[in-house]
């Protein structure tokens, strides 16, 4: 590659990103500061630089000097504040370490600015000017070159499948052409939480769902979305689209992973520039649908006091809010909501690529205090969520704060309470 990434390309990328909503948002901001109060990086550090609207300063400067008459006049007179390499370098930690793209700021802005979408746009400029954290570069490189941000190859998945098949006696279908559903997995599920795959197998067997995995497109995560490069994201989405089209499936199931849902459900078609030939559902949407239609039957109730952590990308940015609650009501007798539940939930602190960025570890742990105090308010025994990344971050945060509490995936919880027709196996292994 002869083309190096530089400030000119960065500014150009920002210029590409600005659209009518962006212009409306910048025109409307009155510097009221309320977005700061919605951002856990500000509330837990009290550092004003984490104020969401401050994070989009580079984009604002480009908008003003490129797309407003008055701004262009100022630029011509040399009065405009320029976007420089130094500025982007200074802003890089705010954009990548101090924002999980959780979108909470976009919910509270009184003039209705979708700030988090603008921060996502700034990342495009950061990528094009090479102001990206090492951790995300590594993850993206592995995703593109190996097929998974964590470097997992097909062999590793196959090994896990073999293991699960042996343990459960269930068949995990791979590359079954013409199946109704193609399930995707996140690397973390493959490595850290293989229970998810097991749960899928159990549930789909009971509900009689025709499904498969793809050996060419099993990875659901998309590092391109996290680092903020449409070019990389497009390449990764294309693999899934190709895999699904090859197997001629009707549906693709997004796993318990937040940004993967955003990537494949909402951004994917726009990245490849056309509608899919298949539909995308989140696993919680599918489970809810199966349960509502009576195909998924559960028995027994979890009687421990538990709560549900809404993954930002699934609830606030994905619109899946009622489903997990309906599912939980079937299997948990003592479900309680955290304060600010559902679409107003606070992020775990590790989304939007922050968990892949070691540089952000300290601030991320500080940000976790928000979740910690939320949990302390309700005093629960079990924490349920639906995102492998959240789950890992929550486990780490709880451990750091000496809070002893299991974190469970919702699909897994459901699978544990499946109505067992022959009641052969025990309730639980542990």
């Amino acid at each position, binding site marked *: *590659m002869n*083309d*190096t*990434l*530089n400030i000119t*390309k960065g500014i*150009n*990328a920002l*210029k*590409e990103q*600005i659209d009518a909503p962006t212009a409306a948002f910048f025109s409307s901001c009155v510097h009221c500061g309320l977005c700061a109060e919605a951002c856990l990086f500000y509330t837990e550090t009290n550092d004003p630089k984490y104020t969401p609207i401050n994070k989009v300063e580079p984009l604002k400067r480009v908008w003003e000097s*490129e*797309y407003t*008459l008055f701004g262009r006049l100022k630029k011509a007179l040399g009065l405009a504040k320029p976007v420089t390499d130094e500025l982007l370098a200074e802003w890089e930690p705010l954009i990548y370490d101090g924002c999980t793209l959780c979108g909470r700021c976009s919910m509270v802005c009184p003039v209705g600015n979708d700030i988090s979408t603008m921060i996502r746009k700034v990342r495009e400029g950061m*990528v*094009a000017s*090479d102001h*990206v954290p090492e951790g995300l*570069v590594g993850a*993206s*490189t592995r995703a*593109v*070159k190996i097929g998974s941000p964590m470097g997992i190859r097909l062999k590793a998945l196959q090994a896990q499948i073999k293991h699960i098949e042996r343990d459960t006696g269930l068949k995990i279908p791979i590359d079954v052409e013409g199946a109704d559903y193609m399930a995707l997995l996140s690397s973390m599920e493959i490595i850290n939480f293989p229970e998810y795959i097991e749960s899928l197998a159990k549930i789909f067997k009971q509900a009689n769902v025709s499904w498969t995995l793809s050996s060419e497109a099993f990875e659901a995560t998309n590092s391109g979305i996290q680092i903020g*490069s449409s*070019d*990389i994201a497009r390449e990764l989405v294309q693999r899934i689209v190709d895999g699904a089209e090859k197997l001629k499936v009707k549906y693709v199931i997004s796993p318990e992973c937040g940004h993967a849902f955003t990537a494949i459900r909402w951004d994917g078609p726009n990245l490849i520039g056309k509608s899919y030939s298949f539909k995308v559902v989140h696993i919680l949407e599918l489970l809810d649908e199966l349960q509502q239609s009576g195909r998924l039957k559960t028995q027994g109730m979890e009687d421990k006091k538990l709560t549900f952590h809404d993954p930002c990308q699934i609830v606030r940015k994905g619109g899946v809010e009622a489903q997990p609650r309906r599912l939980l009501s079937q299997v948990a007798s003592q479900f309680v909501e955290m304060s600010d539940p559902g679409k107003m939930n606070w992020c775990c602190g590790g989304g939007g690529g922050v968990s892949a960025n070691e540089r952000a570890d300290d601030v991320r742990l500080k940000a976790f205090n928000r979740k910690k105090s939320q949990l302390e308010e309700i005093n629960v025994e079990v924490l349920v969520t639906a995102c492998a990344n959240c789950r890992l971050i929550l486990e780490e945060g709880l451990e750091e704060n000496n809070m002893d509490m299991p974190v469970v995936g919702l699909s897994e919880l459901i699978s544990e309470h499946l109505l067992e027709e022959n009641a052969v196996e025990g309730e639980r292994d542990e």
Partner: protein
Amino acid sequence: MNKKTLFESLQQQGITRRGFMKYCTALTSLMALPPSMIPMVANALETAKRPSVIWLSFQECTGCAESLLRSHSPTVEGLIFDHISLDYQHTLQVAAGDAAEHAREQAMKEHHGKYLVVVDGSIPLADPGYSTIAGISNLDMLNETIEGAAAVVAVGTCSAFGGLPQAAPNPTGAVSVSSLVKDKPVINVPGCPPIPTVITGVLAHYLTFGSIPELDNLGRPKVFYGQSIHDRCYRRPFYDKGLFAETFDDEGAKKGWCLYRLGCKGPMTYNACATLKWNQQTSWPVESGHGCLGCSEPNFWDAGSFYKALSIPDGDYAKAAGYAVAAGVAVGAAAGFANQKNKANAVSQHTKVTVDDFGENKDK
């Protein structure tokens, strides 16, 4: 010439001390002074000398003189006029031609430094031919007459502020007295016409105290022009309550509500109509159901419609807005399309990012 004091001249007319005190009471009220000043007024009048007055009429309609002189019967104002020596008033005096001008010249000579000059009407500067008296231009006559005057009283809006002759486009180049007279005290008594009692009140003040009353920054006596019509209007409580007549024959108008929305200029007009009233204290414009025109204020002819509320701009704002909309759409569309081009340009210059590109800069 008669050199008696006012008291003596009244005594000669058979007026008693009680009559004199009653006269002083009325006069004090006329000058808008508090009743506690009556003894002081009486005291001053016992020694006051009869002043000489020269009345010059320039570009005017005689309305101001009419206002003063058309009273049906002798009033307090009348008594004052009985006492002053009106030595020149070309509408009223019997003498004509050279004799009239002689009277003026003689009065100027005899009372040099002590006589009052009353002016009604504005002075044309564009061409002196617009208004002359006895072949003398208004400007020359004014300059000549005020030379030995003690003070000048500009009666009516025309002489005080230029008035109707000065209204746009002001063909005669009319100006006010105060814009020409800089070295003599000028008392402005504006109004179109002024309230007669205000004219006599000012003269009474000069007669009584031998000085000019306290003036505001437009040269108007504060006792009469110190407060706005709005402040002294009996309909003011309706303004405060938000009750307004919206047409001249609606319920609000019948109930006597505030006339602001019908264009009343009361809030910006300083005059004493609300207290002194007109036609022997019978009524005044607002009481008769019509808003104040603002006739005692400068530029009142050019200040927009009499029937538009004061808060409404009086330019051709509809035209301005029309042009602005057209210009705004044109400029906005041009800027918008330029932005589209700019953005399309940026999209075309996009170079695909690959993972291999990262860190190249940092290596250098």
